[in-house]
């Protein structure tokens, strides 16, 4: 006798969390980083739902109630467990809604998702962090990690390019890092007025100004794709193999769990095979227009 629907009914299994369901947490702090760029420090709600941990390079899907959900890189210190910080640039309706959240507001969080920067694998290497514009956001957790475990690495350098002085992110941290011994920090702008006494030029122009041994260096690069391509090319030309260059990419995402299909770049799902990739894996797909 085949089992009837009623006889064989299993209870719905609610113990396995549905990866499309967010937890609702609360904004603790809102920091204006630059025009249109806001950091949100997110903590537990009253029920005490734990704040998710993360590894540098990962992202969460942040949901603005009733508006929508987008992938946002985690930008805070991975060793902080009581809160999690994201930096959002308002470019569309969802990011604008997120950037308007105030302390006490609810925010939906799903994640963390994605691959992470190779901070553990970089033990014993010199580390070069190269960021352009908003690309510094997913790399800030790397800086926190490197400084916490400083003795595990050789020379560490941050190269950061922004458009104008007003576009600089994380100014307080930049000042702290510039004064940190054992950390090379070079910042350049695309253009600036006379009040800026630092470098003006393209971020790859800073490479000769920091010390590292290319063959023994791991590089982590993030920014607009043409910048990633030219930075990687430049690094390879000075002897850094593509297997030691890591990049973070982005594409349209709806689910972040490899089901919606939107984030594909060739065979790669940015949400689960990335967003951090070793450069030799994505160099060819990145070179094909409109792939």
């Amino acid at each position, binding site marked *: 006798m085949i089992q009837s629907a009623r006889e064989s009914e299993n209870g719905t299994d609610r113990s396995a969390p549905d990866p499309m369901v967010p937890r609702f947490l609360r904004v603790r702090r809102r920091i204006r980083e630059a*025009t249109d760029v806001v950091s949100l420090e997110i903590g537990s709600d009253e029920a005490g739902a734990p704040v998710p941990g993360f590894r540098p390079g990962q992202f969460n899907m942040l949901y603005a109630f009733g508006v929508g959900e987008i992938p946002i890189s985690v930008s805070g210190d991975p060793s902080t467990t009581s809160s999690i910080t994201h930096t959002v640039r308002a470019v569309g309706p969802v990011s604008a809604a997120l950037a308007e959240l105030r302390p006490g507001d609810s925010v939906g969080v799903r994640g963390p998702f994605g691959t992470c920067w190779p901070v553990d694998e970089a033990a014993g290497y010199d580390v070069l962090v190269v960021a352009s514009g908003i690309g510094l956001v997913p790399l800030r957790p790397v800086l926190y990690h490197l400084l916490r475990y400083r003795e595990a690495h050789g020379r560490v350098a941050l190269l950061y390019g922004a458009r104008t002085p007003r576009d600089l992110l994380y100014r307080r941290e930049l000042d702290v890092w510039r004064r940190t011994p054992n950390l090379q920090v070079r910042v350049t702008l695309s*253009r600036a007025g006379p009040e800026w006494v630092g470098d003006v030029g393209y971020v790859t122009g800073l490479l000769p100004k920091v010390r590292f041994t290319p063959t023994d260096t791991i590089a982590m690069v993030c920014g607009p794709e043409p910048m990633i*391509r030219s930075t990687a090319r430049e690094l390879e030309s000075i002897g850094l193999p593509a297997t030691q260059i890591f990049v973070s990419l982005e594409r349209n995402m709806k689910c972040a769990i490899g089901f919606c299909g939107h984030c594909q770049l060739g065979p790669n799902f940015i949400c689960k095979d990335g967003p951090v990739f070793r450069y030799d894996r994505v160099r060819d797909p990145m*070179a094909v227009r409109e792939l």
Partner: protein
Amino acid sequence: MTSIEELLRLHPFLRGLPGEIVVLVAGCAKNVVFQPNGFVFREGGDADSFYLVRHGTVALESFVPGRGPISFLTVKSGEILGADWLVPPYRWSFDARAVELTRAIAFDGKCLRDKCEADPRVGYELMKRFVPPLVERLRTARLQSLDLLDDPKRPRK
């Protein structure tokens, strides 16, 4: 049919170049043609050629996912195309796409570099001609990058 040497003598880039040097570099040269929308070279490829454009237009572009190809310079008749072949590791930094039917003289980059290396006089005569257009392009690229034609509603600086 005009020989490659004749074409070289006629090209503005090599104006005043001593005859025997024209003959020498002609050994590295050949005639090429690019169809409309054909690529002359691709970003990341081996920068193994140098081009003198005879007729037509080539756009130098970078591709930005979500924005498409963005052209920042067009190279026309009488102008030179390609600078990465001069500097190791000899990889193209941008895409170069023929906007219309384009005829050019293509030089084998290594052949030219070897000839410059072998005879410093040849090297200097060529470099004297390369440097001014490259400096000019650098100069105008700077002016372009100042984005002076900004939208007045956007915050300045």
